[in-house]
């Protein structure tokens, strides 16, 4: 076990950032801490790093109690959201900083820096200053700097948050390949579910100072533990219905147990027959993409709903805006009404 977090709590004045959080990170795994802002994910990362001290609970790094260890003794690599490069130092001096403060010989530093520059594919920029680099280059230099002293764990705080979409995608793929190459236990914080699902081996979904679910990207996406996880991991549609003989039906007046069903846009089917579907009106359609996005208005509840159809099905149906149709979930995830709050994301 590379990182073990046990019952960690942290409060900032009245605000509770973490409430008895426990987490295990096995060696060599890439973990995403995913959650909305204010969910405590960055605080958890900073406590693992030693940049923040937990009020209660303990942190172990490679079976060693880290509470006695200051951030500079933990031998972690930390990558900051805004890179935090040393502006007055060249790329070479930035990357070699960790070895320099350990008073290693110049030649060793030089060799290691060259090795890292090859790793981040930025050879030949040793003597530039951070101000002369692009955002993506800076982030890679920051990563190389964090890796220089061969840290036991690598921690990244919103590593792609300050980059534009295209660079972010590139760097994400690159980081995945890099991790497969060097296998250092890594934890990164993100509020972007797509990034977490695509990049991580494990996803830790956090909300309101607690961990909601831990699992592989498939597990958290296909088997969310609760409505919050379901809603946070992608576009989702709500159906208010009643549970009748193991079936959710659109029957607002019935006396069976009321439930809320959740379905992703691609799990919905549009038809013109009324058979146990929810009546809806087509608002608008957008066929530019792999799938066709159709926005519907549920006529009974006056709520909008997003449906994703395949291009073939869309042409087959030949929908028109304003048309009245029925929508029916092919699959529906039901959580008991008591836990199904309306989460604000």
């Amino acid at each position, binding site marked *: 076990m590379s990182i073990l977090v046990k019952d960690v709590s942290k409060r900032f004045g009245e605000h509770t950032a973490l409430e008895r959080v426990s987490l295990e990170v096995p060696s060599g795994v890439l973990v995403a801490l995913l959650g909305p802002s204010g969910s405590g994910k960055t605080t958890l990362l900073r406590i693992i790093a030693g940049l923040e001290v937990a009020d209660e609970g303990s942190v172990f790094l490679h079976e060693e109690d880290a509470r006695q260890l200051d951030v500079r003794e933990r*031998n972690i690599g930390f990558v900051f959201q805004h890179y935090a490069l*040393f*502006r*007055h*130092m060249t790329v070479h001096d930035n990357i070699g*900083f960790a070895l320099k*403060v*350990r008073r290693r010989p110049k030649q060793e530093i030089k060799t290691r820096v060259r090795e890292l520059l090859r790793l981040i594919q930025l050879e030949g920029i040793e003597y530039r*200053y951070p101000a002369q680099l692009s955002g993506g280059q800076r982030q890679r230099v920051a990563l190389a700097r964090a890796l220089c*002293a061969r840290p036991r764990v690598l921690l990244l705080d919103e590593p792609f948050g300050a980059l534009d979409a295209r660079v972010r995608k590139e760097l994400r793929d690159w980081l995945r390949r890099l991790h497969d190459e060097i296998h250092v236990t890594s934890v990164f914080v993100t509020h972007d579910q797509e990034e977490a699902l695509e990049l991580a081996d494990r996803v830790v979904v956090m909300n309101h100072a607690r961990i909601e679910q831990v699992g592989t990207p498939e597990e958290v996406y296909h088997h969310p533990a609760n409505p919050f996880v379901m809603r946070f991991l992608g576009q989702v549609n709500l159906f208010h219905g009643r549970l009748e003989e193991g079936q959710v039906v659109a029957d607002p007046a019935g006396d069976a147990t009321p439930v809320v069903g959740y379905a992703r846009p691609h799990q919905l089917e549009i038809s013109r027959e009324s058979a146990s579907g929810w009546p809806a009106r087509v608002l608008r359609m957008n066929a530019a993409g792999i799938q066709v996005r159709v926005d519907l208005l549920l006529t009974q509840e006056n709520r909008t709903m997003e449906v994703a159809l395949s291009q073939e099905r869309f042409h087959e149906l030949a929908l028109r805006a304003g048309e009245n149709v029925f929508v029916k979930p092919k699959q529906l995830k039901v959580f008991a009404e008591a836990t199904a709050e309306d989460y604000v994301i």
Partner: protein
Amino acid sequence: MPNVNRKVLPGFSLSLGYTVFYLSVLVLLPIFACFSKAASLSFDEFWSAVWTDRTRAAYVLTFGTAFIAAIVNLFLGLLIAWVLVRYEFPGKRLVDSLIDLPLALPTAVAGLVYASLYVENGWLGQFLVPLGIEAAYTRLAIVLVLTFIGLPFVVRTVQPVLEDLDPEAEEAAASLGATRWQTFRKVILPALFPALITGFALAFARGLGEYGSVVFVSGNMPYRTEIAPVLIVARLEEFAYGEATAIAVVLLVISFSMLVVINLLERWSKRHDA
């Protein structure tokens, strides 16, 4: 045809015109007058006015004391700015406003107060003089009073830069294994360097031109505690205007070239800003 080169903020030529005009009237014209007055002397007269044992002693004293005071202010100012930015303590705002006092106080008052403090029966002098530290009417007195006069400059130039420092850079240094001292020396200090040089230059320049306070604390003994501005006044009192301006020209030229060097140093220290 419309002017395609116009900027969002208009008035470039107007503001530049005013700048040049003010600089000419307020700075260049008096300097030119000073030079032309000095030029009324022949070269031999000029040389014998500016290059005697007494004037040389005065130059060394003027630049030496201003330099030492600016160095003291460099460290003292950094320390004060650090305390004011990094720590919270009762009376912080009062301390903060006290920093500017030397700018507002008539310097003659500062000189009188310092002189009375350090004389043999003054508040501080009664303890220092028996220890052999004579701070009144000595070179030490000049350094002390110039340090007082120059105090605000380093504090006020370093303070905003220190406030704007990225706390993440310090956390990054710590996470990379740097000790507090290494973080200060390798991360914080280089970031403050341009501001420190600016503050030093301002304090130094202020010290070079100071007259009002020094005249009260130094005793103005030729060869020992007589600074160049005092010498100029002495020449003026003898109605030797040409000689007085000649010394002034020398002061001006040395000061200007030193400030140019300091400016170059500052620019060099900012070389990493693209």
